[in-house]
């Protein structure tokens, strides 16, 4: 059996599913990445500290806010800038907004059609308009929350080293807060929809890597931890993670202590589920997701769980900001200096690292960005081979669909991974 899906659909970016079997045995199973490289690490060189995050956020249209946050953290660490508690709260809220918007896109528009036997959500516009409207509502709520804070979800306007060029007033949050409260019903229906989807039975343990923060379910700040008990301070990520060039991918493959691993929603839920807000833990149980969960298809369920979590978290953060007040902190003057800094966040698709070195004029001299999807590719290739072995006896169409679904369940962000 020879399977070749050129330019897999319903994913961000260009990749091919390539697999073959001989007498029911797996000969090959890889995900080819054919996306054009945009050389972001090269073009950041020579740029001023204030231009760097503006450019770096443009690595990705879906997770621009994560890139901006990681980029700013790296620049601030390099230049010795401290940010205020208010800035951290606003950035955590930004991460919640992006996770809601990104996960909504995936669970509704990209992944769900696989389980409903559809090619896309388009047929549902006629058949089930309420579901389509709900999908747009959830996605747009995250998008509009980001707009309130930083002007635009893709690409943020007001984020600069040290803080923001402008901040929202407390009352600017009122309309979006009301929409987020109403969104609880939409997310209850989202959980219900995923409860009824038929998830393929397939288990494959791997090592799950994510950030962990002592105080909260972590998207911003914290150290790197793995399900095997490793713990690495953020700034020392190079002790654990390196990247290698592979022939079938314009994106490099990252390794964790030389081996394969998985990042993203499933890794975060597996590692940090105890810190989820209570309604998200309820959703987790309702979806039959029992950590540690080793079914890669359940990454979709983990995203639904995080939708519930991020909604509650966003409401909590908005209320915290409202009670302490929001002020524009005027002084963001930066003294150029030479130095290196590392920034890490949990982007919707997993651990994201930006690492910059600045020269004494405050110009970027060296940049290294490690993208979540690049960290999943090696794991995905091995997993495709194992899953193919399990389903190889099925008709070719079913095998092709199964492999496509497996890749999609990772929610790969391909152009971002190549950057």
């Amino acid at each position: 059996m020879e399977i070749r899906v050129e330019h897999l659909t319903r994913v961000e970016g260009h990749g091919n599913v390539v697999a073959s079997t001989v007498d029911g045995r797996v000969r090959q199973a890889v995900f080819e990445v054919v996306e054009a490289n945009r050389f972001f690490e090269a073009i950041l060189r020579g740029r001023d500290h204030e231009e760097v995050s503006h450019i770096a956020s443009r690595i990705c249209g879906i997770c621009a806010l994560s890139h901006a946050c990681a980029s700013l953290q790296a620049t601030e660490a390099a230049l010795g800038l401290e940010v205020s508690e208010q800035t951290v709260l606003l950035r955590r809220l930004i991460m919640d907004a992006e996770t809601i918007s990104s996960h909504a896109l995936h669970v509704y528009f990209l992944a769900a059609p696989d389980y409903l036997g559809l090619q896309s959500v388009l047929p549902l516009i006629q058949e089930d308009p309420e579901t389509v409207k709900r999908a747009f509502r959830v996605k747009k709520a995250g998008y509009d929350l980001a707009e309130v804070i930083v002007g635009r979800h893709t690409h943020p306007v007001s984020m600069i080293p040290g803080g923001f060029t402008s901040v929202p007033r407390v009352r600017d949050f009122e309309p979006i807060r009301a929409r987020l409260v109403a969104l609880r019903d939409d997310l209850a229906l989202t959980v219900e929809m995923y409860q009824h989807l038929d998830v393929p039975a397939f288990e494959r343990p791997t090592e799950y890597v994510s950030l962990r923060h002592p105080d909260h379910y972590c998207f911003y700040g914290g150290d790197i931890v793995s399900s095997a008990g490793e713990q690495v301070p953020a700034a020392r990520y190079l002790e654990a993670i390196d990247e290698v060039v592979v022939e079938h991918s314009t994106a490099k493959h990252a390794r964790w202590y030389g081996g394969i691993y998985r990042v993203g929603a499933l890794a975060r839920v597996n590692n940090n589920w105890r810190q989820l807000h209570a309604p998200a833990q309820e959703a987790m149980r309702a979806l039959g997701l029992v950590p540690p969960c080793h079914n890669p298809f359940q990454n979709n369920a983990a995203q639904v769980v995080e939708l519930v979590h991020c909604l509650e978290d966003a409401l909590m953060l908005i209320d915290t900001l409202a009670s302490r007040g929001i002020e524009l902190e005027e002084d963001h003057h930066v003294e150029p200096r030479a130095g290196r800094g590392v920034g890490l966040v949990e982007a919707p698709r997993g651990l994201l690292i930006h690492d910059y070195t600045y020269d004494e004029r405050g110009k970027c001299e060296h940049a290294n960005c490690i993208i979540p999807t690049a960290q999943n590719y090696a794991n995905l290739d091995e997993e495709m081979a194992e899953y193919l072995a399990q389903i190889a006896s099925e008709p070719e169409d079913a095998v092709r669909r199964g492999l496509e679904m497996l890749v999609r369940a990772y929610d790969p962000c391909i152009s971002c991974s190549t950057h």
Partner: protein
Amino acid sequence: MAHRPDRRPRVAFFDFACCEGCQLTVLSIGEPLIALLASVEVVQWREAISEKSDDFDIAVVEGAITRDSDVPRLKRIRERAKTLIALGACATIGGPHVSANRWPTQELLSLVYGEKAAQFEAGEVRPLSAEVKVDIPIYGCPINADEFLTVMKHTLIGRPYRPPAKAVCYECKLNGYECVYEKGMLCLGPVTRCGCNAICTSRGHRCFGCRGLVDDPNTSAAFEVLEEHGKTLEEVVGLFEIYSIRAPRVRELAEAGPHRAKPEKAPEPWRFGSNT
């Protein structure tokens, strides 16, 4: 109606080297997008649907061209489309990775892929118009969602669309925002095409020039502002290089002297089906 009355206009989305943020901006329009989707037939959109037909009327193409091997795909899209819409900064002016052109391709490949560099392809970053005729450019990094809807409406009723041709300063002033130069910062507003409603200056930031050089820049006024605020042409070109292959044009205009630049020939407004 300019299109065939027996069927809804067929729309296809494509992308080349980009972040896909402009397509995401389209997907984030929300309910008005559902109405648009009802009046057309989306027949290909790799990012969002698995349906796939090469029979389409309107091609919406995001991204820049960076590899010669991608050109035939773009040309096939152009041949099949009655209307080709270039979506966003990468497709219209090169976009935020256009400054890769400052380095030799081999150096960039070696930097990323090391000794395996020879296995990978790269080339000059250029907008779609370097390879094919573009009917309607939608500028911006990312695009403005309202402008996308306007362009689609114009296209569907067969009305010509011409992109905004004033500078960002115009929209900034209309909104009454404080001039960025007054705050001591360099801003590309005086020479950048508007249509963004000055979103960056509305948030206390400056214009980075993501919509490219306005058709007929008032360079003498722009350079007066620079002089008055002690900013240099080098700084302007450096900032302009973030997005636009036309950064050298800014230098040219400056060196042509302190007079109003001779406008380049303005493009003919485009009509649905005019090139078929």
